[in-house]
């Protein structure tokens, strides 16, 4: 993505911070035993607790707290020994208690750094302020207002299935400088959370929602400009577009002598612009206070160490290894890292074959093609990474040529097992026996007089055809380089 709003574009620099809400993947909701599952008939995944019936009490979900710790540790955040839940008080019809249980001044994780890369491979860092745990609200459907908004609607329907689903709110420091970086940052969050298994991060199901705080300042300035908070961005693409549009808007406000005002602005996907939603004067006083229904969370060090020890190889570490050690390009590395099962498969293939380049060629090439054609993923296919490594070894040792390798791979995909065994059983090993190949060459030259004549008349590209004929005679086993060499010798 080339952007007009990159650092210092037109003498301005953008300063961006991102807040995003990510639904945690847990068996049950944050404070009750209802299943944490997307969808379903409205109001079927509810109980006295998540409906906030009189007298019901919340009990914190341990799995969610462990997910939070894992997420924090993945970004080198601090996990304080003591944390607590607070109530954020405001009235909203789809929020059953009319307060949200959240975390105010003692979140489960503090600080941390998100490391990500851009398309050109540049590594970037964005500091995290915190990640805190809270609960989701229900979902309102407003009828009769035409635009689906509550204003002017004649009635509203509320589905509380989502009410009480655990959410982590990730707040970044204003370290992001462009729309491209914003997307890079979000992709880093996504791939990390997916890899940790703490969230599915499906924007279309609302399991990742984000707001961006955007301001501009003269390039090189150290003071921040006045920020606008951008909401309603429902895909990474719209995050990119909304930030681009907002930066351009703020530049034009300033260029025309105006001042950017602090406000909340909504992104309009159709218009491709942001518009005022509410100004700062309408800001809420949420009257945060510690939730007396929930005991403080004491995180013991042993739990933190145990979770830390169980963390997988994280995306930035993988990226370094793939690009620096294995020599993969940014796109290849990203493609693998964003498909974790495939990356694990790849790693096992590399471990067995010691040949990253060939492993990558097969995994992202023929194997991915077969996967697409068959609808089975590579890791789920009958081709084990160890069998793939055997195949690579056969090619490396020039025991088989690439054509045979391709055929073998298809047979492996169809469940025929070890390529080495097939080669041995069927005598498919490539031959470099000059005598045998010479016999095939002579036969081909004898039966293709016209081609031989054409070659001699200067049509040297006919050599490919003749090579093919020899390969055919040898049932593909001849070493193609040797075949060419012999042909050229005999024809000259």
């Amino acid at each position, binding site marked *: 993505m080339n952007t007009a709003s990159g650092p210092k574009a037109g003498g301005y620099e953008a300063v961006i911070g991102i807040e995003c809400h990510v639904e945690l993947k847990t068996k049950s909701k944050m404070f009750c035993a209802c299943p944490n599952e997307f969808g379903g008939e409205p109001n079927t995944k509810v109980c006295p607790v998540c409906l906030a*019936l*009189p007298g019901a009490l919340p009990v914190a979900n341990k799995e969610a707290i462990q997910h939070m710790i894992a997420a924090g540790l993945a970004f080198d955040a601090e996990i304080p020994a003591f944390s607590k839940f607070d109530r954020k*008080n405001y009235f909203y019809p789809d929020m059953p208690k009319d307060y949200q249980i959240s975390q105010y001044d003692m979140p489960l994780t503090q600080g941390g750094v998100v490391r990500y890369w851009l398309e050109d491979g540049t590594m970037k860092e964005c500091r995290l302020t915190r990640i805190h745990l809270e609960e989701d609200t229900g979902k309102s459907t407003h009828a009769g207002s035409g635009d689906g908004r509550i204003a002017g609607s004649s009635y509203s329907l509320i589905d509380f299935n989502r009410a009480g689903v655990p959410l982590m709110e990730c707040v970044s420091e204003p370290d992001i400088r462009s729309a491209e970086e914003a997307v890079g940052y979000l992709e880093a969050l996504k791939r990390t959370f997916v890899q940790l298994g703490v969230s599915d991060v499906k924007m279309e199901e609302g399991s990742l929602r984000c707001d961006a705080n955007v301001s501009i300042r003269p390039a090189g300035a150290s003071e921040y400009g006045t920020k606008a908070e951008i909401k309603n961005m429902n895909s990474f693409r719209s995050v990119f577009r909304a930030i681009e549009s907002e930066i351009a808007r703020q530049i034009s406000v300033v260029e025309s002598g105006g001042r950017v005002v602090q406000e909340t602005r909504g992104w309009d996907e159709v218009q491709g612009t942001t518009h005022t939603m509410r100004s700062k004067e309408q800001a809420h006083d949420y009257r945060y206070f510690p939730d007396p229904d929930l005991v403080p969370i004491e995180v013991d060090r042993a739990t933190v160490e145990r979770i830390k020890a169980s963390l997988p190889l994280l995306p930035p570490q993988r990226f370094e290894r793939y690009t620096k050690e294995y020599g993969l390009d940014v796109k290849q590395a990203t493609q693998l890292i964003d498909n974790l099962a495939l990356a694990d498969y790849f790693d096992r293939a590399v471990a067995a074959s010691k040949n990253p380049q060939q492993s990558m060629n097969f995994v992202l090439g023929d194997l991915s093609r077969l996967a697409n054609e068959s609808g089975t993923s590579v890791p789920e296919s009958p081709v084990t990474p160890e069998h793939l490594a055997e195949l690579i070894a056969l090619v490396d040792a020039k025991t088989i040529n690439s054509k045979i390798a391709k055929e073998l791979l298809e047979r492996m995909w169809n469940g025929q097992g070890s390529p080495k065994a097939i080669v041995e059983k069927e005598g498919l090993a490539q031959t470099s026996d000059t005598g045998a190949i010479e016999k095939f060459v002579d036969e081909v030259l004898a039966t293709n007089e016209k081609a031989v004549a054409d070659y001699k008349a200067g049509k040297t590209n006919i050599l490919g055809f003749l090579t093919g004929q020899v390969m055919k005679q040898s049932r593909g086993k001849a070493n193609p380089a040797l075949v060419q060499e012999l042909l050229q010798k005999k024809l000259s």
Partner: protein
Amino acid sequence: MSDFIRMSAAEVARGVNGAAFSASDVTDAVLAHVDAVDDRIGSYLTRLHDLARETARNVDARVKNGEKLPLAGVPVAVKDNMCLTGTRTTCGSKILENWISPYTGTAVQRILNAGGIPVGKANMDEFAMGSSCENSALGETRNPYDLDRVPGGSSGGSAAAVAAYEAAIGMGSDTGGSIREPAAFCNIVGFKPTYGRISRYGLIAFASSLDQIGPLTRTVEDAALAYEAMAGHDPMDSTSIDRQVEAASTALRTDLKGVRVGIVKEFVTENLGPEIHALYQQTYAELEKLGAELVDVSLPTADYGLATYYLIAPAECSSNLARFDGVRYGMRIEGADVGQMYEKTRAAGFGPEVKRRILIGTYALSSGYYDAYYVKAQKARTLFSQDFKRAFESCDLIASPAASSPAFRFKSKSDPYSMYMMDYYTIPMSLAGLPALSVPCGWVDGMPMGLQLAAPLFEEARLLGAAHAYEQATHHARRHEPKMLEVAS
């Protein structure tokens, strides 16, 4: 018939378990008595005749099956802020006037499991805010010892029901004195266990960090039995304590030898009037006579109890009561938009005391005031715990009046502050989460008074044991019969 209604819970359970009579016999007698007297007393907002009879039949079947149930056939008044499936649960408020609970709270369920019979849902000050039951929006409850006087509150319905033999156990909730004060007013025992001993799941919250369920009974032994049935950890309430409940009913004692009883020097009784002062001097002397050693202790923060309480409790209630918004259940008054619906519903649904506390609490939590009020009050609360801890270094129990006066006449406390003063002696223990109870200790002007005893955290068995010794030695409660009974019979 009257034999059954006057029986203690222990006597009823013994009789039913021993097949001397059935739970249904007791239930029929109590229901008939409720029908005879409750139109005048008003203990119950909802009578549960059908449920009571059905439950009694089940208990009889269980006993027949060989089960021994600690509360077999015992008639129970359930305060109307406790959820019981299929019953109207109003909190004494218009906003929940017609709300039927679809689930049963833990404490109520445990009473049912133990063989208790729910006779009715008892009246209370709206959302448990009040000390006289006069703040109920749904009915008036009168003191069985003088129908012109209040029964106390907020658990006034439960207290009146037990005093008038309409139940043997009243389930109450105590936030700043709401069990102990009505018990004192109605000549019965009222026991608030350590905060967290009994699950709050299914108790409609007033102030979550203070609310505690407990029993109101005519004897200390019954309080112990009811407590044992309800106490213990509940995974549905994360503030409930996961700690062994010591048997209380088998630790009841008959003397106070070796017990050091602290008399709080800041709790001066002289200013309660000569008669009341004399009564408590006599009460303390009775303790001494039983073998207790009286020691002077100090609670330097005592005078800040009300101020602290009236910041923390309203702050929590302002948030706890937000859910009564007309959206999902309870009263709804339509408005032009959702904001207006909230305003109209809450304006019509809540009474003046509830509104006052929501306003105070909202203010105390507001940005700019939070540190000055709420945070300060929390710090003061820590001081109360420290004061008590220090005091309990030199004593085993603390004795004091349970309330500042005997039950007063209706509408005699017109300003809120004079009403709040009724809980002067009970609030400090609530702030520190301590177990405390009120046991009858004598009469002033023909009206009963209560002795409050408080113990360190988790020392319920010690507390009940001592109260039992005092009760058995004095029998103050037996001196008078409720007046209304003379009228009814």
